[in-house]
């Protein structure tokens, strides 16, 4: 006990230091409103996947409102466990009360500041909208059908195997979350098959798990033989007396995976269960980062309305909150790059395309959040086309300056840019006259009207570009940029040679 007390004192001291220096990097520890143990230090950067977030666990009071990032919370479908043993072989129960509770919790969460909530409907849609649901769901359905066939063919042992596989396939899709009935059906039949094959203890556990999936499930009287009915009754009784109402969706690892799948940091789970003095609402908030329930309550239904808001406020006050760096701190970033470039002209005076390759250097300065200016300088060499309409290879120098909008997603940074583009051409001369090519443009046979001479010309116009940079580690970047320009100066010199496109691939460095 003494070491624990010493650790507690040390943590309190650290917390006091952190409070005195809110911007210090020393990790603070978030207290919980539940009797759960103290959590490990929290890395909110990895939790939210945004590099613009400070890597320190902070509480709501530690972070100024203007830099708080909303907590992302999803509400999982509540479980109706307010059932009686006597009703097990009676008519189906109604779930209206559960939907009302879900809606009330969603409204209460939305009303809280700095909370981004996803209600049950969104959760169901998100989970169901997965291409794997169609294919793997079909497989699970086939396994379930096969299991039933085997069961009715008096092969309960083999049926149990198939039914177990069906349940596993559905659970992998989180079918038990967005549409639990098929999964529960398979789980019930799995338990029934086990009991039927003499594996009573395993069957009891399987049936108990089935009631966790769908506690309000009812069965037609006399549909199953008496031993099965007894097993079902025993399993429900066991679940209602010992089953945790808030752990119906699996263990902490699966809950964390589910949160990741939904793209949230917290999950709200709830259940309605019969208490000693009437129905009670159970509510819990699971933290995906810490893999534990940060807050739990169970209150009588008639007190739920009154107790809900204080419960959420208490949890939010103690739950870690991420801090977004002010714009001024993430801006002022300078990026440079050196890229290989392929820059063909989409409008050329030659009959077949001549190619332009080279390299470019660029610099971009993010002076405001999501806003940057940039400048690029490129040196290209254009080589003659197969028909040699371009009379000789030439070099060109190109400069671009402009503004760009940026957005970052994890290690990727996307941008679009618009700017002014100027290109100094080298000895550009083109003709479709074979005599001009062989004898030269000064020869009497050369038709001067068929010669395009842009020697030493400067073309100017506007350029649009889009690109992406991948953060390779440390401050190195891999960049890909595509661009297109339209020249309009000189006024009479852009009809033959224009629309230079560009693809650049290179390495960059963030200063």
């Amino acid at each position, binding site marked *: 006990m003494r070491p624990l007390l010493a650790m507690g004192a040390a943590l309190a001291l650290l917390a006091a230091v952190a409070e005195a220096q809110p911007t210090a990097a020393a990790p603070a520890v978030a207290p919980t409103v539940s009797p759960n143990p103290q959590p490990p230090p929290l890395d909110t950067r990895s939790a939210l996947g945004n590099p613009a977030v400070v890597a320190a666990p902070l509480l709501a009071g530690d972070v100024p409102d203007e830099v708080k990032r909303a907590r992302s919370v999803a509400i999982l479908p509540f479980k109706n466990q307010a059932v009686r043993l006597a009703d097990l072989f009676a008519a189906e129960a109604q779930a209206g009360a559960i939907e009302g509770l879900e809606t009330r919790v969603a409204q209460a969460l939305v009303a809280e500041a700095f909370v981004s909530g996803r209600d049950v409907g969104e959760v169901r849609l998100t989970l169901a909208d997965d291409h794997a649901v169609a294919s793997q769901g079909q497989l699970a359905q086939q396994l379930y059908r096969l299991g039933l066939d085997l069961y009715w063919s008096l092969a309960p042992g083999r049926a149990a195997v198939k039914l177990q596989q069906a349940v596993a396939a559905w659970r992998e899709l989180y079918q038990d979350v967005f549409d639990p009935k098929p999964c529960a059906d398979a789980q019930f039949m799995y338990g029934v098959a086990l009991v039927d094959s003499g594996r009573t203890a395993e069957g009891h556990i399987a049936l108990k798990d089935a009631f966790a999936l769908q506690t309000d499930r009812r069965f037609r009287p006399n549909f199953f033989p008496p031993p099965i009915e007894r097993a079902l009754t025993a399993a429900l009784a066991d679940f209602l007396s010992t089953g945790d109402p808030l752990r119906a969706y699996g263990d902490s690892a699966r809950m964390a995976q589910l949160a990741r799948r939904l793209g949230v940091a917290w999950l709200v789970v709830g259940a309605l269960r019969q208490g000693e003095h009437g129905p009670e609402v159970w509510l819990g908030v699971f933290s995906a980062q810490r893999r534990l329930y940060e807050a739990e309550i169970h209150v009588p239904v008639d007190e739920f309305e009154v107790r809900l808001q204080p419960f959420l406020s208490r949890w939010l006050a103690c739950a870690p909150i991420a801090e977004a760096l002010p714009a001024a701190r993430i801006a002022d970033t300078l990026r440079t790059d050196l890229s290989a470039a392929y820059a063909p002209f989409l409008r050329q005076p030659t009959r077949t395309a001549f190619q332009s390759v080279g390299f470019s250097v660029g610099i971009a300065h993010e002076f405001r959040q999501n806003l940057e200016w940039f400048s690029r300088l490129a040196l290209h060499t254009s080589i003659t086309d197969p028909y040699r309409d371009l009379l000789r290879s030439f070099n060109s120098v190109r400069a671009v300056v402009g503004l760009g909008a940026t957005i970052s997603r994890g290690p990727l940074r996307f941008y679009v840019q618009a700017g002014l583009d100027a290109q100094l051409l080298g000895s550009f001369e083109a003709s479709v006259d074979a005599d001009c090519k*062989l004898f030269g443009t000064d020869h009497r046979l050369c038709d001067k009207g068929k010669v395009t001479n842009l020697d030493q010309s400067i073309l100017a116009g506007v350029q649009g570009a889009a690109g992406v940079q991948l953060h390779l580690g440390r401050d190195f970047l891999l960049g890909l940029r595509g661009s297109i320009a339209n020249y309009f100066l000189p006024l009479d010199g852009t009809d033959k040679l224009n629309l230079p496109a560009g693809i650049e691939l290179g390495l960059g460095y963030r200063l």
Partner: protein
Amino acid sequence: MRRPWPWIAMALLAACTSSGSMGGVWRGTSDPQSPGNPLLFGDEGAPLSVELAIGEFGPDLAGLVRFYRDPTFVSSRDADPPDAECACSLLHSGRVATSHAAFTLQGCLPGGSPGAPLRLRATLDEIDTGLRLALTVDDAGSPLNGKSTSLVLNRHALANEITSEDLACPVGPAGGNTASGL
């Protein structure tokens, strides 16, 4: 292992700037004894040498044909100057298809042509030993109209070896049969 990039770049450059297989300098000598050669012969029926400088650019062909009265140029390029009076004629309307080319000539023709300028149609066909040049007079006003001759040309220089001297063709009087003086 040697770095492959320079070779790849050179191959790319070569592929992009290929000038075809007919480009270059070609030479051949007519055989005046041949019954099918009523057009190309020198003084007193001596053999006449022909040099063709060709630039091939995709589907287009340009160049000139130069005549020598002495075949020694075959072994020594500058051994003799071109024919003094009928040095060369420029190719016109040159077009190239696969292994075949056609063009026209307007000017003098040593040998059997009369003094007036002649218009000739010419074709080139790739053969194992080089090119076969066929010339046909296409001049309704000439007594030689319709007559044709052919000779085999051998490559003397590649396309990228053509020099400005190879292409020199001074403007002069476009005579006719400089050998016979007609």
